[in-house]
């Protein structure tokens, strides 16, 4: 008896293999979906609380809700209601114990003025009891940059007023210093004239000493001619005259040295005066520039006087501008 014919099978047990592949794929997809759902918190029980804000600018669904910087939920839903926008916050139930009644929510940014927007929960006092599902809490809008700057400006204005007062005192001191410098400069300007007069005096003293020396020599010669014997007898007188001449010469030398020192002093003082003037000018420019820079410019605005100018011209009895 011949064996029954069996057609050749190219892929034996193909159906079982396909079924196994599909099963593994379905299991993988289910596992992935489960992981995603877990990450999304679908398996965590959440309690819904509400806030009403007159302005929902910057708030969006899915925005994290944070408590002490820790994410405890997210914005679930938003809808328009009379008086503003009703924002539903989904809070993980396990954290609800930390959010008692009287808690407040506010719009904030994680890194100050810029950064991701979040809803921050500011817990109330625990003695008020826990919040329940669907309960509403108060919502505070955070301040904008302009409000922060304005507040800072308001707070800083008195400080700038004090600074202005201090600077005006410095300015007044500067005026005194400039008066002193002006006086010093006037005195310094007179120094060359003094120096010139001193040199003239030295020249005169030189000439006088020379004349005196010449006259003394002539007198000595005549004395020699008149009485050589007496001259011989009085050598002490000649010695004294020579000493006197030496003294006069010394005095003249001293005067020359004094004049040179005065000139040197003048030369060394002048750069200092120039530097002082330059410093004063620089300081004045710095003050002027600082006064023009915001926010100092506001503080330095002179308060206008409420009175009309008192003009002595009116005493002439001239017709006033309003008379017809």
């Amino acid at each position, binding site marked *: 008896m011949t064996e029954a014919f069996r057609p050749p099978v190219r892929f034996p047990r193909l159906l079982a293999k396909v079924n196994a592949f599909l099963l593994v794929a379905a299991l993988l997809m289910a596992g992935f979906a489960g992981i995603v759902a877990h990450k999304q918190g679908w398996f965590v029980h959440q309690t819904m609380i509400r806030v009403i804000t007159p302005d929902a600018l910057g708030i969006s669904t899915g925005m994290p809700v944070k408590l002490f910087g820790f994410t405890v939920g997210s914005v679930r839903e938003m809808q328009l209601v009379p008086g503003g926008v009703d924002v539903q916050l989904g809070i993980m139930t396990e954290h609800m114990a930390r959010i008692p009644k009287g808690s407040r929510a506010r719009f904030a940014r994680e890194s100050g003025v810029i950064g991701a927007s979040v809803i921050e929960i500011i817990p109330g006092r625990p003695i008020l009891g826990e919040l329940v599902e669907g309960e509403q809490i108060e919502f505070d809008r955070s301040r904008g940059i302009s409000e922060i700057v304005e507040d800072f400006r308001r707070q800083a*204005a008195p400080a700038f007023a004090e600074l202005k007062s201090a600077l005006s005192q410095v300015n007044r001191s500067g005026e005194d210093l400039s008066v002193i410098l002006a006086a010093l400069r006037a005195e310094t300007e007179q120094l060359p004239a003094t120096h010139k007069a001193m040199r003239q005096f030295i020249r005169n003293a030189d000439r006088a000493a020379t004349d005196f020396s010449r006259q003394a020599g002539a007198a000595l010669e005549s004395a020699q001619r008149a009485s050589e014997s007496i001259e011989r007898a009085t050598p002490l007188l000649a010695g004294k005259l020579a000493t006197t001449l030496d003294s006069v010469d010394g005095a003249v030398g001293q005067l020359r040295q004094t004049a040179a020192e005065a000139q040197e002093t003048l030369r060394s003082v002048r750069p200092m005066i120039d530097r002082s003037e330059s410093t004063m000018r620089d300081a004045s420019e710095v003050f002027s520039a600082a006064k023009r820079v915001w926010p100092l410019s506001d503080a330095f605005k002179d308060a206008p006087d409420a009175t009309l100018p008192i003009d002595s011209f009116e005493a002439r009895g001239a017709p006033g501008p309003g008379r017809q």
Partner: protein
Amino acid sequence: MTLLRSAAAAAPLCAACSTPPSAPLPPVGARGADANARAAALVRAGDYAGAARRYEEALALARSVEDLDGIAANAINLSVVYQWMGREGSARDALKIVLDDPKRSFPERRRLQAELRRAILELAARDRAAAAEWTARAERRCERLACELAPALLNVKSQLALEGGETAEAARFAQAAADAARSRGDRAEQANSLRNAGRARLAAGEPAAARTALEQALAIDHALADPRKIHADLVELARASAAAGDRDAARGYLERAQTVSHAARDPRGLEEMEVQLRLR
């Protein structure tokens, strides 16, 4: 974040100053300031009657809250505007609010302003005795002539001396006023002092020196763009030129004065008429 850090750094500075933040103006104060600002705008626009009404309103508001500085300031402003309107009696009455009330402690600065205004009013009315008395009072309050109104005070004294025929004294006071005005940067009073100096020189028989001073006054008044003062300078220059024998120049100055007067719609001054009569 940077802003917050800057604010945090500035906070100790603010705390160190320990000055409370300036309180906003109360409603009445704000209304008074508003009325005052509107009055100043009306003065600039030349509506003196409207300005007087606004100053009266501001005065009433200041009185309602016993704001002594505001009362005095508005009374002085009223006296100025009333004088411009030719209501000298009302101007005096306005000043009496400050001058005839010793019980209320008005600021010294306001009392000084009121006394000087009264001296100006009396001098304008040719009452030299009263003007001298009020000037002396103001001078006592302006210690060693170091106050802000010293140039105006010295100019009033110069005019008083000139009215009394004391030309040397008038020139001396005018020179002191010019120095004080220059050091304070008060150009209006500097021009007034130069005009007074010119008048004093002219009265002393020095027309050339008078013309120099008056030309300087005219240059400043051109810069200040006050037609009344330009007119006064030109009339004085015409007098000085006439006294120097330069009739053509005098006639030229007079024609310019007439043009200024007509353009400003001011009545021609009696002094100008007098000079014209002398020139003919």
